[in-house]
């Protein structure tokens, strides 16, 4: 089992040596990803495989032993992220032929950490992989260009903060429950609840803070927009789809079981206050994510906030604490990996060809890049949760579970968020692909084969999971069953909801939609053609706005698409801005630091401070 971790490490080392020639390095990257996928596939079902490495490093009196275990949930996350990583690997061979920096070695290290996180058996290994992933992703994001520095610095500070809060939580847990193994520490933590409630809540809150920072949930939702806009696009596709799930996995394996069977008084007999706390945070991040996504002009930032919203849905699924809700959110995890990867791959293709990521500067690419358009369209439909594609199933199960638990406020916020999703997804589709093609992109061609094939694979995946959810649900339910949850194994095409005998058969839904598309295509072919007028004529009466000294793109209809909607929410966002709060903390530190440097640079108060130090000792030694 340990060779699945060794392979990425060795390839990282080798590709670091041959960093100069790109072809070999990216080819190695592809092979190792393929190997990992194959190895994961062979590990399916063998849940008792463990690998223990005991060092004689003493902590709390006992010798520390680091372990990896093939737990079912870890396998589930690892397998599906490996599938998507393989596809991205194929894509990035073509993408990186002419890019400056080479992110492959760092990316291999991140994949090593990725597998380590999903397979860690005890908290110390988990923490080691977590921190390794933290700083390696900093180097992957910046990858040599300095304009990415302050966004990456922001992300680094947050992830280090998350890491430290998790370190405190792990050590408190280790001290009070005498074990670092994740599963046993969960059970003992529950007994600890009635012994020392204060410690219990601090441990839980610190864990939740660390996981929310990594998964960009409500209080820490700002970093994705700063980071996704500047990083290398193929790595960002990996980061936005897989790496944002690292916070969700420990929630699923540790926090949810602990909160689930806590004997806390139930509020409106739906769930204890912890569930509501998580639920409201999920709802907030869904709503805020959607709203902010609407106001963005950069397409990568737009989809960064859409990731925040989707993380919100997953949390809502956890908050319902019902089996169907839990399954729904885990199913949504895979759906989101697939659809986010598809969307970011197509964005990468757009950036690869046009080099532009501001939406109002693009337009009309549908004629030049049809396959990218189709992938983007499928991604949009899946993200919006429209039936034939995979987004629908998980959202449907989550809303069912929330309704069954009568958490009405959460349901309303989820529905508001998914309708909001229509708005910004449609806006992205229209401004990038539809509309008129600016002159400068006249000679844009479709991306080469090595990049369009993975996009087609992604489309196929989305359709497959959409129509036959069993592909994901069957391994998921088997995994949950192996973990000890009372769950019945899902069938290939039907999804069971939390109400009695209300299942839904997705094959029929697919047939209906197929017929709908056929009718739409007929109407389009035989309807009267629309004649195209140059875009700028309609408001500049044939004049060329450049003579007015104004940037023509600002007049593009998709410039501030939802201006009225934005004015409605602006007063809200002006006053409370979490983003300003965090960056102001950073600014304060940078403000104090010159004064301290001044103190040390002059250095003439040395003896005075020496005697003040002696004074401090005397006051301490004498008075205290």
């Amino acid at each position, binding site marked *: 089992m340990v060779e699945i971790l060794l392979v990425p490490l060795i390839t990282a080392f080798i590709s670091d040596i041959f960093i100069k020639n790109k072809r070999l390095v990216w080819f190695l990257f592809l092979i190792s990803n393929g190997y990992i996928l194959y190895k994961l596939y062979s590990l399916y079902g063998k849940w008792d495989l463990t690998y223990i490495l005991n060092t004689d490093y*003493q*902590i709390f009196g006992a010798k520390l032993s680091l372990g990896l275990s093939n737990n079912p949930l870890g396998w589930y996350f690892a397998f599906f992220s490996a599938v998507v990583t393989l596809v991205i690997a194929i894509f990035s061979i073509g993408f990186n032929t002419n890019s400056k920096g080479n992110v492959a070695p760092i990316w291999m290290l991140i994949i090593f950490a990725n597998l380590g996180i999903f397979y860690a058996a005890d908290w110390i290994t988990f923490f080691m992989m977590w*921190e390794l992933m933290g700083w390696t992703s900093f180097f992957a994001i*910046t990858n040599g260009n300095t304009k990415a520095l302050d966004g990456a610095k922001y992300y680094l500070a947050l992830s280090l903060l998350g890491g430290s809060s998790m370190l405190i939580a792990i050590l408190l847990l280790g001290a009070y429950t005498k074990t670092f193994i994740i599963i046993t520490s969960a059970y003992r933590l529950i007994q600890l609840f009635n012994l020392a409630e204060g410690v219990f809540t601090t441990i839980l809150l610190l864990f939740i803070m660390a996981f929310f920072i990594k998964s960009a949930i409500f209080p820490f939702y700002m970093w994705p927009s700063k980071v996704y806009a500047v990083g290398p696009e193929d790595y960002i596709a990996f980061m936005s789809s897989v790496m944002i799930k690292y916070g969700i996995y420990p929630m699923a394996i540790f926090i949810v079981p602990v909160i689930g069977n806590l004997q806390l008084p139930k509020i409106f007999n739906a769930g204890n206050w912890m569930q509501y706390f998580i639920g409201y945070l999920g709802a907030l991040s869904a709503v805020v994510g959607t709203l902010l996504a609407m106001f963005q002009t950069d397409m990568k930032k737009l989809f960064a906030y859409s990731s925040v919203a989707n993380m919100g849905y997953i949390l809502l699924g956890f908050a319902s604490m019902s089996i169907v809700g839990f399954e729904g959110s885990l199913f949504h995890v895979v759906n989101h990996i697939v659809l986010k990867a598809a969307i970011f791959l197509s964005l990468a293709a757009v950036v690869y060809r046009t080099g532009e990521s501001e939406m109002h500067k693009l337009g009309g690419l549908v004629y030049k890049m049809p396959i990218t358009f189709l992938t983007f369209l499928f991604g949009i439909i899946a993200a919006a949760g429209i039936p034939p594609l995979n987004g629908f199933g998980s959202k449907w199960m989550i809303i069912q579970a929330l309704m069954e638990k009568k958490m009405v406020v959460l349901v309303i916020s989820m529905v508001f968020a998914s309708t909001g999703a229509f708005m910004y997804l449609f806006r992205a589709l229209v401004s990038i692909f539809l509309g008129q093609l600016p002159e400068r992109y006249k000679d844009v061609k479709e991306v080469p084969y090595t990049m369009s094939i993975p996009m087609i694979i992604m489309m196929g995946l989305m359709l497959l999971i959409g129509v036959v959810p069993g592909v994901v649900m069957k391994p998921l339910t088997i995994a949950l069953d192996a973990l000890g949850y009372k769950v019945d194994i899902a069938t290939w095409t039907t999804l069971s909801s939390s109400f009695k005998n209300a299942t839904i058969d997705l094959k029929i839904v697919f047939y209906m939609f197929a017929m709908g598309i056929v009718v739409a295509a007929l109407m389009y072919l035989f309807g009267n053609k629309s004649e195209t007028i140059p875009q700028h004529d309609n408001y500049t009466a044939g004049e060329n706005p450049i003579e007015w000294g104004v940037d023509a793109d600002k007049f593009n209809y998709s410039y501030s698409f939802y201006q009225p909607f934005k004015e409605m929410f602006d007063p809200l966002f002006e006053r409370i801005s979490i983003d300003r709060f965090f960056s102001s903390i950073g600014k304060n530190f940078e403000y104090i630091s010159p004064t301290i440097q001044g103190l040390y640079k002059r250095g003439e108060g040395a003896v005075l401070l020496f005697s003040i*130090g002696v004074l401090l000792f005397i006051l*301490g030694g004498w008075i205290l």
Partner: protein
Amino acid sequence: MNSIVFLVVIPIIAAFLSLFLGKVNKLIAYIVTIFNLSFSIVVLVSGKIPFNVAIGGWRAPYGINFVVSDITIFFLLLINVAAVLSLTTIKEHMEYQFYAFYFILLAATNGMVLTGDIFNFYLFTELTTFAIGGLVAYKRDRLATGASLKYLILSSTASTFSLAAIGLIYKTLGTLNFADIASKISNLNKASLSLILILFISSMLVELKIFPFNIWVVKAYDASIPAVNLFLHGMVSTAGVYGAIRILLMVFSKNSIMLSQSSNIANILILLAFITVIISEIGALTEKNLIKVLAFSSMAQLGIFLFGISLGNYEALKGAFYIVISNYFAKFVMFIVAKNYSVIAGSRNYEDMKGLGRKYPGLAIAFTISALSLMGMPFFAGFWGKLSIVGNALLMDKIAIIGVIIILISSVIEGVYYLRISHTFFSDGNIQDTKLSRINCVLPIILAAVILIIGIYPNSIENIIWTMINEIQNTPEKYIQVILPLK
């Protein structure tokens, strides 16, 4: 094993000889340092480790004696290895005074670690102060004179404080020998003991670079030539750390590991420790000069070390040892890399060193590895130290918990500014092609490899540290019967 005194005598004789041999000095410096290192290795291997050497034939409490125990040998090796490594960075011809100062510094730091007599320890500290004062002032330009003068004034006032403490110890306990003091310390009046402790600790903390006492650090590091930075870091602060362990933990703490009888002095030490950490991290945040950044960061690491020591339990002490080791190797790599890059880029400002990481990847990777180890990232040596210090501090009283939280926040700050520096190394910049000889790329890579090995597989270091902690655990009894059996 009386010949251990050669470790101190040979460098002093070499110092006298260095007055005449202008050109040959560098060769003699190598010979003497390698002699010291190999001699201490022979003593380590000889296996007669806890032994006591009475100088001049007079037995322990009456004459001066050298004590060699597990901790002594460990720190002796650290100092001598540091001396050999920092000699390799001296390229150009140095005047004979530089080598005289260097020999005396070598003799003094070895003596500080070996001696078992408190006045002798004071004398060796004085010698180190003068040697470092001379070395810092070696460039004799504006910055160096100011730094050396202010360091001298501060350290001579500090030494008068420790002289007063020695006088008080002699007046009350009547002896000057560490072991004798350790055995008689408990029948001292509590107030008098805290007075003696305060005087002694205040002069000790000047060398340990703790907040109110460390105003001299940044100026001294910035004003001196790179080789002297390595001396300052490798030899002087290691000897200072040894002094803190030997005196604060073994001599003045009777039975409990509690740093001192009066627990509130320990609380003040914890308070000062984490204030040093947070202040030096914030100070380094916007610092542009690479050497000053390293000076701030070494203050922070020693702050964490003092925090680990004064927590008062053995696992936190083990963490403090890990921090010392990781800081020792990491800072070595960083100073060498800083020297090489500032020679190429022409200025010590890390923004002008853009793109050097691409031209000399070995150095930049070594720098990043040591930066990560200082930040306490897993898979590097610093992590094991941070783990046990944070773990044990959480279970202590309130002030320790606040201290741990502040230390973790400052390690976040440290992470931000270190990775920003290593990012500027790797980012693309136009650097004209001055050829850097391959051999000084090798040294940082080896040291970075050591950090990595300790990080991944800490067992080897763990056993060494536990032998030392066992020695501290049953301190006075084992220590005294090594020195005073002849009574």
